[in-house]
């Protein structure tokens, strides 16, 4: 057991995979001497050298595209994208090439590229530094997408991502980078591509992921003080989504609220709502509710508190759900 932040847990996880697999390499902007703008790769270049921790030219399409070629040679590139809003110059390579290569080659080729993207708001920054683009990627078949919410998962999920034979995008909740917790370095607990019930309850279920898991847990705690027992599921994997775990929970509680920072329209919450309506229609006692961002570009720092789902908004949704 070790106590560390999410950021340091990812560093430690990366260090493990680099030790275990000589083909693992890191690439990205400023990840070498600087250790990345969030210092997630800090110390790794000193430890593994410049050929395994590579400061690339400043070009996201170049980073992803060359990682694909490296993967064809058996490498396991882990690409760092500096901020969520800067992944888009690489979007073409990710969605038209990386995601599709296995299918296009009838299974002959695979591209086990990992892309790490710090995402989400709440850090009081300027535009393009607080985006939640997960749904844009989740809509693309061929990509796996995960997001840890605590140090233990961060440590293991990054390693499991590198081991995956498919491309994996790891969305890292940047406002939780400094969140501390226990990491069991002996046992992962479970597979990266599954969800986890992080709090048991009987009256309603809240599904959250990444940065909002602590918010959902706090809302559940507050609800308990009002006499409501709320189950909280940490989704962990956005593609695939572990619908079984959610369905089981909804059979028990009959009420489901899905929350994410990304806009609700066209988001992951809509997908969960639709699937669960199909799978657990007769168990549902209220429509599935979504608590998420609005249909607007991420607003300026001064008003982001009005944009981000918080405890109050979750409790309001809970009241509405339980009122049916």
């Amino acid at each position, binding site marked *: 057991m070790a106590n560390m932040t999410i950021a340091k847990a990812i560093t430690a996880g990366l260090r493990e995979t680099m030790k275990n697999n000589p083909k693992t390499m890191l690439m990205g*902007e*400023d990840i*070498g*001497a*600087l*250790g990345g*703008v969030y210092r997630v790769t800090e110390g790794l270049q000193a430890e593994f*050298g*410049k*050929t*395994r921790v*590579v*400061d*690339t*030219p*400043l*070009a*996201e*399409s*170049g980073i992803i595209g060359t990682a694909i070629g490296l993967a064809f040679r058996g490498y396991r590139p882990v690409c760092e994208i500096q901020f969520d*809003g*800067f992944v*888009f*110059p690489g979007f073409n390579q990710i969605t038209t090439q990386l995601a599709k290569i296995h299918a296009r080659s009838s299974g002959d080729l695979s591209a086990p590229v990992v892309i790490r993207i710090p995402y989400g708001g709440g850090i*009081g*920054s*300027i*535009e*393009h530094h607080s985006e939640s683009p997960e749904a844009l990627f989740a809509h693309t078949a061929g990509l796996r997408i995960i997001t840890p919410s605590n140090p233990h998962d961060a440590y293991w999920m990054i390693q499991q991502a590198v081991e995956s034979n498919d491309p994996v995008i790891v969305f890292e909740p940047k406002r939780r980078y400094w969140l501390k917790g226990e990491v069991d370095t002996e046992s992962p607990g479970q597979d990266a591509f599954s969800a986890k019930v992080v709090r048991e309850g009987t009256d309603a279920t809240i599904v959250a992921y990444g940065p909002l898991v602590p918010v959902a847990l706090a809302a559940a705690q507050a609800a308990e003080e009002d006499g409501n027992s709320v189950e909280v599921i940490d989704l962990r994997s956005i593609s695939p989504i572990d619908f079984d775990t959610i369905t089981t929970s909804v059979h028990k509680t009959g009420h489901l609220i899905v929350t994410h920072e990304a806009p609700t*329209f066209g988001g992951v919450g809509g997908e969960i709502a639709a699937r669960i309506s199909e799978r657990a229609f007769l168990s549902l006692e209220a429509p599935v509710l979504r608590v998420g961002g*609005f*249909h*607007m*570009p991420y*607003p*300026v*720092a*001064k*008003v982001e508190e*009005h*944009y981000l789902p918080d405890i*109050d*908004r979750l409790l*309001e949704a809970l009241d509405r759900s339980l009122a049916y």
Partner: protein
Amino acid sequence: MGAEHLPTSEFDIEELEQSMTSSDPADAPEMVQLLASDGTLREDVQYGPYAAHLDGEALRGLYRDMFLVRRFDQEAVALQRQGQLVMWPPLLGQEAAQIGSGTALQANDYVFPTYREHGVALTRGLELSALLKLFRGVSSGGWDPREKNFHLYTLVLAAQTLHAVGYAMGLQRDGEDGVSVAYFGDGASSEGDVHESMVFAASNQSPVVFFCQNNHWAISVPTEVQSRIPLSNRASGYGFPGIRVDGNDVVAVHAVTRWALEHARSGLGPVLIEAFTYRMSAHTTADDPTKYRLSAEEDAWRDKDPLKRLERYLRSSNTADDSFFEEVTVQGDEMAAKVRAEVLAMTGPEMVQSFNNVYADPHPLVAEELAWHLEYEAGFADADEAGESN
């Protein structure tokens, strides 16, 4: 295959030291320089004439602008340190590149900046505190780009270079004589958008000037990782002229930019200018350069300070004396105090504005979400009132 076969795309200390010495403008013959580091003016057959109009008053004006924007920059850094701005990208060291080029533009030319072009903004007559709205977190823009032909800051690197070319294509079609100017950094020069913008510009022979400020660093990554040749040399591959100019020499930058604008304006197509300069401070207030660069390098560049160089000339040629420099200092302090007061008075927009600005025409989903938001917020107001009356 072992790692020993791999090229080091990375810098090491020796390489860095070497690039330091070879980066002295005086050692680089291909670099245009009119004002030598010792503060004396040089002859230059091609570009000299483009600086000939700079009389004493104009030179004092260039100094004043450089001084003011440096003072503004210092004030912004201080405001950030005091928690009044969420972050700030300083321009320390790049004053000559920006003031020299900005003052060469005409009113109908149109600037597409990145996020550090505070000096260019000053030459366009922008209210400087407007630049701070973005960094205070109260706006994603902060000014109407059409008022001074100065586009909003663009944070996704290189995206604006294509907009600049498109704008130039528009000018061309409309038969107007304006020139579009795209500013970007040495790091951004690696982005695909820069390549595509140069291809389009060349293909259309559009009136656009690409102004690359090579300040040697893209956050922690040195220019060598982006380009093994002077960036200005890339232009020939696209089929238009590229010029490397001493970016700490405000006179040379001004002259070269005038030449490039005239070239583009007269229908001869694009030009790439590489202003060879140095970022003397951190990349942004969130950055720590001690993690990646040598203080010896910084010291070497401090000697090439663009303000000191022009001051040396102004003094030795009796173009300016102590009273001028004192007057500029007072002016700087007044400007800084004004900017500070304006920033402190800047309050956040209402959330409602974020809904209202999403689309130009009404949109039912936004209307629905706004209605929900207002009702939700009103619930808190009601609760507060109920609480108070208790």
